[in-house]
């Protein structure tokens, strides 16, 4: 066991994957010599060489399109998009090719590849550096979309994503890279994709979130407990596939739910969660499910970002609304 941050856990997973499987390679802008803008591939270029840790030209479509070809020909590329906000030039490759080839070729060709993207706000970054648009990827057939929130999950899920026979978009909460630490096993282990996890068990209300917002939700849980409320906190970990069973089971118990994400509100993944809760558990609901989200606006820059990114206070207020009824 070793105590690692979420960032270190990812580095560890990359290292293990490169070591264990010759088909694995990393490609992205500045992932090589510089070790990635977040230093997540630190040391790997030196260890595995420029054929396996590839500093790509500044061309996201090029990175994903080329990696796609590599995956079809038998490699297991792990690509890094520097920030989620720079994934859009590659969007066409993801929608039109990465997510499609298995279906359009009826399993004859496949593209097992991982697309890593640091995502999310709350750190006062520059424009385009705080995006959380996972729902556009959730709406893209043929790709899985996962978001770890702990070092343990980050490592195990990344190794699982690399092993997955299908493409996986692997979102990394920037805000948690170095703010969470835990003891995790040395060496390879897998965490299955597609299963939510109950982080905090409780009885009165279900708080459903994922990624960086687990941190705010945990704070909200602490406040609520002090107020005598017993919330159950669920970390989805994966939005595609979406583990609706775990969510519904909880809501059937609590009768109340709040979904939290920092993504824009309209057509954000929270809407999907709400829609499925009401499809499966309408008559268990004692109050409307609340969504605590970012707004339909450009993520504000540092000085005004606090108006946008959900806070523990806003979560507590939303829980309050569900308890009013």
């Amino acid at each position, binding site marked *: 066991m070793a105590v690692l941050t979420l960032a270190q856990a990812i580095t560890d997973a990359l290292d293990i994957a490169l070591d264990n499987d010759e088909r694995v390679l990393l490609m992205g802008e500045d992932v090589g010599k510089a070790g990635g803008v977040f230093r997540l591939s630190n040391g790997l270029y030196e260890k595995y060489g420029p054929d396996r840790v590839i500093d790509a030209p500044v061309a996201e479509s090029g990175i994903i399109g080329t990696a796609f070809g*590599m995956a*079809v020909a038998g490699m297991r590329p792990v690509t890094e998009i520097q920030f989620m906000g720079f994934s859009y030039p590659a969007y066409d490759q993801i929608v039109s090719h990465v997510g499609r080839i298995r279906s359009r070729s009826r399993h004859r*060709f496949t593209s097992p590849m991982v697309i890593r993207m640091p995502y999310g706000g709350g750190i006062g970054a520059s424009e385009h550096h705080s995006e959380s648009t996972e729902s556009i990827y959730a709406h893209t057939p043929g790709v899985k979309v996962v978001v770890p929130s702990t070092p343990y999950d980050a490592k195990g899920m990344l190794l699982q994503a690399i092993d997955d026979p299908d493409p996986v978009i692997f979102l990394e909460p920037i805000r948690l890279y170095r703010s969470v630490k835990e003891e995790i096993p040395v060496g390879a282990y897998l965490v299955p994709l597609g299963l939510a996890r109950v982080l905090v068990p409780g009885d009165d209300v279900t708080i459903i979130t994922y990624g960086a917002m687990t941190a705010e939700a945990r704070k909200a849980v602490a406040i609520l407990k002090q107020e005598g409320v017993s919330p159950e906190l669920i970390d989805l970990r994966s939005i595609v596939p*979406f583990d609706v069973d775990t969510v519904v089971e909880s809501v059937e118990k609590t009768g109340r739910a709040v979904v939290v994400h920092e993504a824009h509100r309209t057509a954000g993944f929270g809407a999907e969660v709400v829609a499925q809760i009401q499809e499966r558990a309408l008559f268990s609901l004692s109050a409307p499910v609340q969504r605590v989200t970012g707004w339909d606006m450009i993520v504000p820059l540092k000085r005004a970002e606090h108006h946008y990114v959900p806070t523990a206070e806003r979560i507590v207020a939303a829980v309050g609304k569900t308890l009013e009824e």
Partner: protein
Amino acid sequence: MLQILTPEGELVGDPPIDVPMTRRLYRAMVGARLYDRKATAIQKQGRLATYAPFEGQEAAQVGSAAVLRPDDWMVATYRDAAAMWMQGYPWELLLAGRTGHERGGSPPDYVNVLPPSITVGAHMLHAVGLAWAERLQGNDRIAVTYFGEGATSEGDFHEAMNFAAVHRTGTVFLCQNNQYAISTGLNAQMATDTIAQKAGAYGVPGVRLDGNDLFAVYWAMKNAVDRARGSNGPTLIEAVTYRIGPHTTSDDPTRYRTNEEVDDWRSRDPLERVRRYLELNGAWDEEWQKHIEGEESAVVERAVELAEGLNTPDADELFDSMFAEPTSDLESQRRLLESEGG
């Protein structure tokens, strides 16, 4: 512009292949044309969705594909059926796609040809990745990508050329400059005189040639493939040609080009010049022509039958095709469809 065989069937350079091989490729071009006309005909009868004919481009496709090794990769477009067929993609699957059947996207295991790209541009990058991966795995398989001159306007052409150049991937970029992108002529598409010169922006060799000349195509492709297989990097080939038919069966080309222009290009027909050459060399007669047309027609007819005979996919095939194992999301959607009686 490189030319070896004139429209009159006369040599103005050394033929890169011998007469028996020329006969084989001529026959392939005849077969391709029969396929193309048959597909156009049955589309008119409503038996195919839209179809994109390649008539006039047979030399560019057959002559280039003939250079490949059977296990080389090919990533081509909706208009490249002849090239794909040369590389082992059966006519029936190419047709199946046009009848609206996904099984058309699934060539046999030994055929390293991706299903035809409908999006313009994006697929060139795939050929870069394919060739790169082969080299990383210690194989000398190369990858060729086919595309039109219109596709060079897409950003992905640029990114593909650049990635291939920087990493010296064994990729051949074969552009069929057939003068039009749907209705859009060269002047509205680009401000250069040639496509080949675009290679200079990447430090890649560019070659421009008469794309209706089987020998010129073969010769240039051979050099490019050898370069690629020898780990010497990519080449851009511009095969100057013409699409005799409409963009697709839904297109009305009279809106944007004249009959004179079409006739002029017809006189440069890629099949006819090889026929004349063979005839001049005593390697063609009408009887043989009838014979090969008969045999190739039969192959095409059989392909139509096979394509049309495919079972319509059921819903399960659809749900099962998305991932190695359907996700829980898809499983619940499958149940929902059943419950809705769909």
